């Protein structure tokens, strides 16, 4: 028998603080591996955290509605595994928070959030004063300031959004506001555009056997992007805290407009996945996002997000990078356009793809090669 730590997993790379919303099990409950133990709110989504082994829930350290950090121990699970296999009570694991506490006082901010009393709303005096004057309940607001502190603009955002939407959408709105503002102000964006001929895609979609549902444009583009990422390892990277790392796997995200706001869902491990698998996984992930019931791996980092507004009749747009993911591909509508082919003007189903790139991670050449591959794959020029 061993008493093992239940920790908050890394739900998304740039997440430094989450709320443990509710334990779905109580102490003494018998647990099977995979049972959902509790839910956490990452500002982007509600994520269910499953048990990693069979056993009995021995202790709940952080109760419902606790502010917690990734890797923080929130409970104990008594398992049947031999204690020598794990860090048992005789040899307790190092406290990740304490171990990471810096000696340099300037770095205290990074440790500070772990010291915040759970359930206490951190808001600037300026924000509190404004909230009081506007009769806004400050505890319903998600902060965008240092360590998640609620700032004046957060209060203004809530006040201007009125009453429609409810708390969750306000929180997503605030999260989107914060993340896009950080991205736009701190990430040096550059853009690469290409017009892509979708004739081949259209032909293949029409050629699908009857009864099979044709893959969506979004799925086709995700498929092309996944293949291109494998071909151009220089752009299959992550850039976080100033560190550039190549990814060993291919993951592509997709922007999903849920009722509660915009969520970028990850489709991890796309190497070897064919279009039908991608279509199926895309449909499931989209459904989870719209239901606001995401799994931890739905929020994993990725090299690229696909954002398709073609269905709304948008010709072209530029998207804001979702930090720390280094690229986002904005997809416009597929529409018949005159193009010159072999010195003859012909009509082809065309779409404008606009790639936003984090210049800290990726150079123009890499981005151009990557987008060129995406185009050739879509146009049938590369037979993968």
């Amino acid at each position, binding site marked *: 028998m061993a008493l093992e730590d239940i920790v908050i997993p890394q739900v998304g790379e740039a997440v430094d603080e989450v709320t443990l919303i509710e334990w779905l099990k109580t102490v003494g409950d018998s647990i099977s591996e995979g049972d959902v133990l509790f839910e956490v709110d990452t500002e982007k989504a509600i994520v269910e955290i499953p048990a990693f082994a069979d056993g009995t829930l021995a202790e709940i350290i952080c109760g419902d509605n606790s502010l917690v950090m990734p890797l923080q121990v929130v409970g104990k699970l008594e398992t049947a595994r031999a204690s020598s296999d794990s860090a048992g009570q005789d040899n307790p694991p190092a406290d990740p928070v304490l171990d990471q506490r810096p000696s340099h*006082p300037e770095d205290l901010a990074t440790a500070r959030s772990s010291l915040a009393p759970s359930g206490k709303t951190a808001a600037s*005096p300026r924000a509190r004063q404004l909230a009081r004057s506007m009769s806004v309940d400050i505890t319903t607001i998600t902060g965008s*300031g240092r360590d998640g502190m609620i700032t004046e603009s957060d209060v203004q955002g809530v006040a201007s959004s009125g009453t429609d939407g409810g708390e969750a959408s306000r929180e997503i709105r605030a999260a989107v506001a914060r993340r896009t503002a950080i991205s736009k102000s701190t990430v040096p964006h550059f853009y690469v555009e290409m017009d892509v001929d979708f004739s081949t895609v259209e032909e293949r979609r029409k050629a699908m056997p009857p009864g099979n549902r044709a893959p969506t444009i979004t799925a086709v583009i995700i498929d092309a992007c996944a293949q291109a990422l494998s071909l151009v390892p220089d752009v299959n990277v992550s850039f976080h805290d100033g560190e550039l790392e190549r990814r060993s796997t291919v993951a592509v995200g997709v922007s999903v407009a849920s009722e509660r706001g915009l969520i970028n869902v990850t489709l991890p491990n796309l190497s070897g996945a064919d279009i039908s698998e991608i279509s199926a996984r895309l449909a499931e992930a989209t459904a989870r996002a719209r239901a606001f019931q995401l799994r931890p791996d739905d929020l994993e980092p990725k090299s690229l997000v696909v954002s398709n507004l073609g269905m709304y009749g948008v010709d072209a747009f530029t998207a804001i990078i979702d930090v720390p993911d280094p690229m986002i591909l904005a997809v416009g509508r597929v529409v018949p356009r005159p193009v010159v082919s072999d010195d003859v003007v012909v009509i082809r189903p065309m779409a404008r793809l606009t790639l936003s790139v984090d210049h800290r991670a990726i150079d123009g050449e890499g981005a151009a090669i990557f987008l060129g591959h995406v185009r050739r794959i879509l146009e049938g020029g590369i037979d993968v």
Partner: protein
Amino acid sequence: MDESRNLTIVQGLREALREEMLRDESVFVMGEDIGIGGSFLFTLGFLDEFGPERVMNTPISEVGFVGMGVGAAIEGMRPVIDFQYGDFLITAADQVIQQAAKLRYMSGGQVEVPLVFQLPTGASGRGAQHSNSLETVFFGVPGLEIVTPSSPYDAKGLFKSAVRSQNPVLFCVHKHLYGSRGRNLAHRDTSTGLVPDGEDYTIPFGVADIKRAGTDVTVVANLLMLHRSLKVASGLADEGISVEVIDPRTLVPFDLDSVIASVEKTGRLVLVDEGPRKGGWSAHVAAEVAEKGLMYLDAPIERVTSLDTPMPYAPGLEEAVVPSTDDIEAAIRRII
């Protein structure tokens, strides 16, 4: 203003002292090795112009000649005491803290001590005993005025005000900012500048100067840290972050009103101070803003200071102790 009069701080100080000595017979300067200009060439050429009675080269007797400055000031002279390194003033701390700063008060206003100390301050690669931030060491002493100029324009105008002050003044200049011949001059682009001519030009104490206007965050910095902050502000402007940089210019008296007015506008405050983290002007200002301007704050106050260590010698270690542009930028980003 003549474009050719682009001066360094030590040149501005020299002009100020010369003009004051020509204006007022009671002004004289004393200190170690000042016959050859002193450590930072503050008095270069003064012995020839004014003679040994007004340019007094002293033995290595800091308590003795600082006390003499106090006594001469009591009797109507206006001594300027030049220090090779401000650090050496600490050996005469009793004369500064117990005598110069208090005689007016404990005599019920019977005597005044108009006395100026010219003090090279801050870290400059010389290890622990030649790197004190004197403005921090003496900050909490009532009765002293403390001046920390960052530009030649300010240095000249403030020095003339210091000589004319009726109080003891610690005039602290960062060792990297003098621009003395043969010495390292940091941030030459912002630490040299145009300086007006003429003895009517003075800058009053207790008036901060907004060195760069901005709307998103208020940075208050002095001495070398002012120039580092200006550099950071310039870089952040390219990202659309608008930083207001305020130079308090004098720490005692301190222009708190200007800082609070700026914080009212920006909602955010970063204090950059080369002194150690404990004590000093930035701790005081943080407390004052928390008391008097709390409701303007939209983020925690950030302080960027040196670490609480003696100053190490190795260049890499000194850099680790003293706030860098990266430290300043990170502090701003934490609350933007």
